């Protein structure tokens, strides 16, 4: 993987190219207003992209600072994810053990429990896959958010606003998910669906296990692993889209007046 510095160097060169194309258009001996207008736009785009390159380190630092203010910590988040995975595998092993015990039993009262135990096992396997997906997404965001921001700036630096929307979306995604994803455990705790509290079945005989799994554990698992994290990710995606469109806004406005020449 290339370093962010390499991408920023290419971005800087592309921003200079954008600026130069703008000055070239302004210097063209063509008295056409539509063409001249593009010259001003390109000059301002070049300056805007260069400002973004300059505040790259500030963006990274601000993301970390806002995350620490919110009380979100990446090591704690990964620890929480692996604890959930551990609890899920424990419950899944319990269900599979009960299934095997029921399959070896001659008691028809136990054999009838095999079908619900198998469906519970399938459901738990699916939920484990969901947690694994969240872990992979978290590692991608945690390890590569700096590179994604640099690539986003690179897209914004392209002349004629070719990659402005995708660049803004990449930067918005990286910033919002880097700040917001570690906040997921606290979000779930505040809504009362933290599965580390109510996740393990208390009854260990086969009939009681199926009953407590179906009425207590599975609803909490579906809510705490599938529904609420999905809703949280949708909220974060909405925020990322908003931030992305704010960064890649239709006009590059700077907070001070600039003379073009």
């Amino acid at each position: 993987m290339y370093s962010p510095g390499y991408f920023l160097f290419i971005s800087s060169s592309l921003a200079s190219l954008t600026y130069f194309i703008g000055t070239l258009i302004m210097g063209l001996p063509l008295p056409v207003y539509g063409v001249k207008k593009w010259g001003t736009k390109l000059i301002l785009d070049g300056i805007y992209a260069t400002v973004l390159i300059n505040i790259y380190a500030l963006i990274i630092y601000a993301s970390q600072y806002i995350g620490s203010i919110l009380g979100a910590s990446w090591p704690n988040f990964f620890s929480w994810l692996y604890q959930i995975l551990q609890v899920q595998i424990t419950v899944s092993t319990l269900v599979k053990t009960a299934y095997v015990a029921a399959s070896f039993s001659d008691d028809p009262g136990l054999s009838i429990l095999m079908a619900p135990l198998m469906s519970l096992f399938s459901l738990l396997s699916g939920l484990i896959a969901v947690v694994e997906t969240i872990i992979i997404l978290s590692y991608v965001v945690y390890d590569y958010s700096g590179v994604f921001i640099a690539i986003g700036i690179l897209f914004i630096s392209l002349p004629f606003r070719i990659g402005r929307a995708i660049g803004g979306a990449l930067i918005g995604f990286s910033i919002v998910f880097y700040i917001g994803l570690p906040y997921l455990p606290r979000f779930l705790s505040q809504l009362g669906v933290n599965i580390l509290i109510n996740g393990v079945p208390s009854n260990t005989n086969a009939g009681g296990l199926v009953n407590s799994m179906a009425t207590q554990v599975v609803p909490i698992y579906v809510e705490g692993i599938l529904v609420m994290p999905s809703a949280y990710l949708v909220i974060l995606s909405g925020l990322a889209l908003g931030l992305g469109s704010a960064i890649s806004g239709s006009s590059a406005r700077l907070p001070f007046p600039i003379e073009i020449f």
Partner: protein
Amino acid sequence: MKSKDLMSILILLNSLMVYGLTKNFLFLAIGTSIAIGLNVAVYVISKRTEEQ
């Protein structure tokens, strides 16, 4: 502030930052050259525009 001055300062700062990130002196040299070349090029273009 004139845009060429602002752009030159920003490119120089960029070059310094990229040099700090990559420890590659070539990037600093290229950035400095672009900043100087920009001033020269914009000066020539602005003179040409004035003549027109």
